């Protein structure tokens, strides 16, 4: 019956071209106030040799209406949290509140220049300070820097702090022998990459059949005196709490190393348990996960680093500090200041102070929830994951027995016997109106499907998700083709990624215009 729908070729929404293909010479989308100083010949200001000579050819010429329609149309090709559950494991796709967006747009913040004098920016500095205090309380780690721009950046910062601490503790000579960073095989790829940036070489710790850090292996690796530290995710990327965390920290500490915790999974712990109490020395948080700042199609993030008092002197500068008591503190215009005076600091990891707009949002998140709401969110997030784990056990294999925390991992073992793999299941989920889970991560699980519902999903939708997954499991047996060719409902089908990588086309080119659709 629908055979002829393919005749619908000019549908403007699905076919929105690249803006370069839409460009028409002479269109304009802007207007500036007229120049109000006497115009000089431009060559009198900048010698001709330094001036552009390509007349910006190729840069689009479009009207404001064209721009609006272009992006509104394209936007409809995206899935988003606001449309439904987005159960990407390890990504904590929770509700991004509008209130936080509004806060970040208050003119007194959005219009503030980062090089304003401290006295001109007391409100902005207080926001940073308050957030630091709250994150210190939440992690149990008192030293905080909000400078890192994302999780990986926070990792780099944290690992550099470990390095700097060991340099200081052991001296250059002693430190030079400690160049090993231990990282579990289940860890996120940024962990080893960040360790590498700080000059460490990585040794991989095996996971036990239960999905936890192999203590025996850890002890072996710690036996050689070369360990600078351990980077551990907790709950780990399998969604399991490392219940031996205290023991783990002790082993590493006894071996002269420090413990870095990847805090990407803090949504399982806020208000319930604190890394600082577990023996962790330094952690990064992802404000764009646990604290709900929007992912924005790939950032911006904010990856604060929190550490013990011992490590605090090594945090990046400038630090944002409260001016200590006494007469000065009364002067409201200088209660907070930038402090550069940390000679042991690893230095600056970013210009200015980090992704400030994200800090505003995260602080608003913390204030909106309150201490009880923060714990409630954690409970609800873990409950939702457990509910899914429970709902899918009959149809999918779980690689580990232990009860998951905020996310749960399944394997495609059972389905792959019929030739249906994780990728197919993920694509088929799209037809059911859901964004797929994280797939093929962590690497140690065959055909991993890592599901993190977060607290932002209601029971009805969880049930629908479970039903969809179970239905796909049945399809995998009864009509595998249906799954293997999914998705069927999207604007485009599966793209040939291999071909794309072989001969990458990474930009539009003027010459290509004639040939384009």
């Amino acid at each position, binding site marked *: 019956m629908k055979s002829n729908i393919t005749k619908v070729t000019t549908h403007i929404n699905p076919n929105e071209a690249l803006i370069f293909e839409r460009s028409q010479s002479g269109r304009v989308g*802007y207007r500036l106030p007229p120049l109000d100083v006497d115009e000089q010949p431009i060559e009198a200001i900048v010698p001709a040799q330094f*001036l552009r000579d390509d007349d910006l050819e190729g840069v689009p010429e479009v009207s*404001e209406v064209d721009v609006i329609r272009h992006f509104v149309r394209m936007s409809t090709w995206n899935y988003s*949290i606001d449309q439904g559950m987005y159960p990407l494991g390890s990504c904590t796709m929770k509700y991004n509140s509008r209130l936080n967006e509004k806060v970040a747009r208050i003119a007194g913040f959005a219009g503030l*220049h980062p090089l304003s004098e401290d006295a001109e920016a007391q409100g902005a500095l207080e926001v940073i300070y308050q957030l630091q205090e709250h994150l210190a309380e939440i992690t149990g780690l008192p030293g905080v820097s909000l400078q890192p721009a994302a999780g990986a950046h926070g990792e780099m910062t944290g690992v550099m702090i470990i390095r700097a601490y060991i340099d200081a503790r052991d001296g250059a000579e002693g430190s030079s022998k400690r160049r090993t960073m231990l990282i579990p095989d289940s860890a996120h790829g940024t962990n080893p990459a960040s360790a590498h940036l700080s000059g460490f070489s990585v040794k991989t710790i095996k996971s036990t059949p239960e999905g936890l850090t192999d203590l025996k292996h850890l002890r072996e690796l710690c036996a050689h005196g070369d360990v600078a530290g351990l980077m551990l995710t907790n709950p780990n990327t399998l969604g399991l709490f490392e219940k031996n965390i205290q023991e783990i920290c002790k082993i590493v500490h006894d071996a002269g190393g420090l413990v870095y915790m990847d805090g990407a999974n803090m949504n399982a712990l806020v208000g319930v348990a604190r890394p600082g109490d577990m023996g962790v020395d330094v952690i990064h948080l992802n404000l764009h996960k646990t604290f709900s700042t929007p992912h924005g199609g790939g950032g911006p993030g904010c990856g604060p680093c929190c550490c013990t008092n011992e490590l605090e002197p090594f945090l990046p500068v400038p630090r944002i500090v409260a001016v200590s008591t006494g007469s000065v503190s009364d002067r409201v215009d200088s209660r907070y200041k930038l402090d550069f005076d940390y000679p042991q600091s690893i230095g600056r990891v970013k210009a200015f102070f980090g992704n400030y707009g994200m800090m505003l949002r995260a602080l608003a998140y913390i204030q*909106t929830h309150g201490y009880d709401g923060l714990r409630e969110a954690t409970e609800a997030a873990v409950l939702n994951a457990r509910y899914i784990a429970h709902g899918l056990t009959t149809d999918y294999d779980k690689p580990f027995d232990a009860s998951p925390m905020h996310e749960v991992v399944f394997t495609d073992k059972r389905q792959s016997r019929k030739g249906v793999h994780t990728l197919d299941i993920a694509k088929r989920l799209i037809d059911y109106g859901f964004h797929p889970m994280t797939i093929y991560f962590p690497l140690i699980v065959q055909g991993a499907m890592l599901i993190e519902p977060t607290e932002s999903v209601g029971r009805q939708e969880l049930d629908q998700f479970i039903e969809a997954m179970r239905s796909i499991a049945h399809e995998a047996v009864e009509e595998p083709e249906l799954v293997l060719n999914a998705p069927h409902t999207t604007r485009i089908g599966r793209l040939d990624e291999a071909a794309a990588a072989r001969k990458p086309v*990474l930009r539009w080119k003027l010459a290509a215009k004639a040939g384009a659709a």
Partner: protein
Amino acid sequence: MRYIPNSPEERTEMLHQIGLRSAEELFDSIPKELLLSRNLDTPAALSEIELLAGFEQLATRNPGARRTSFLGAGAYQHYIPTIVDHIISRSEFFTAYTPYQPEISQGTLQAIFEFQTLVCQLTGMEVANASMYDGSTALAEAVLMAERVTKRSKIVACGAIHPEYLDVIDTYVQHAGIELVHAEADPVTGQTPENIAELLDDKTAALVVQSPNFFGCIEDVAALAEKAHAVGALMVVGVTEAISLGLLKSPGACGADIVIAEGQSFGVPLSFGGPYVGLFATREKYARQIPGRLVGEAYDKQGRRGFVLTLATREQHIRREKATSNICTNEGLIALASTVYLETMGRRGLQEVAAQCAQKTAYAAQRIAKLEGFSVRYTAPRFNEFVVTTPVNAKEQLSRLASERNITGGLALSRYFKDRPNDILVCVTELNSRGDIDSLVDGLQSASQS
């Protein structure tokens, strides 16, 4: 809690359904002694009304945000078309994740592809990535990439690079076995000194320059590139004021091998320093050495065009410690804002805004240069920033401008250079009216006289 759909009753039912009696049991795998037995010592929950009032109150304590401003130095106030915020506020963009599932992420992917193309066009380069954290980290990553590409370990950095960018490079390279050599700017021209070639040798991975540089001087990138290439080093160019690309010869046309820029000027609010967006572009032959994400064209079985994340084998989630960078989350939404900005301004708008900046800056510099006791430093041509040496202490001068005329007159260079107490870095953009400029000039004069 209004952000949590399931009510307490529903949660209790769900607990029972999965065989648990209480929420506490959810945390059974955490050793008892690690469980927090008290409430967090963070504030009690606020309503929207209270919360907004609180932030509005804090915002009033940022008087810097309400001044006519001539402060630049790496972060610039420019006109932002209203539609930019409207578009990036669409749920479909701001609440989406990194486009891992291309079938339902084409909006983000096509936008990034356009972003990459625009960055190439503006910088005059062949390929660009999907964004870096900001200009400073992009420059640091460029240095690391130059080392990877050339397998050499010395970096020569021209002195008039933004001091904070230099600091970031320092941090990034400290454990990479890289030797970083600074060359001070020429005190007369303000540019890289003529004898820079003396620092370059066959160990040099890259010559790094910022243009317009920190003092606002336009560097002769073409000449520098020639010198760098003469020793087999890469020419790395950083741009903190991306609007200059609308007027000045592109770094690519000058022979640059890697170009980075801070994209904040392209439609991104000052926001006390972030989030901004780093632009990163290079030659096609180095595409597989690029840090960060790349979007490329791809086709489905029916031949329909789409876009995907590509060349992922460079990245941390595949290559782990051997990746070209540890970057994962980048600045997606800010890159989108820049894309909307660039497309809205378009070819002619980008030219006009750059021209207005240059014209107004020339006007301001000419007027200030005529003031008794003041001088405008450096002979190099400039785009929209310049250094003024004032007869009195710069900080005092600036604080009088602020209190008496509600003007932020610029940056006291003593913030970075303790030995330059009397120098102010002044920035003029299209948002500064002639009246603003005249008022600055009058203010400088009177503040220095009394």
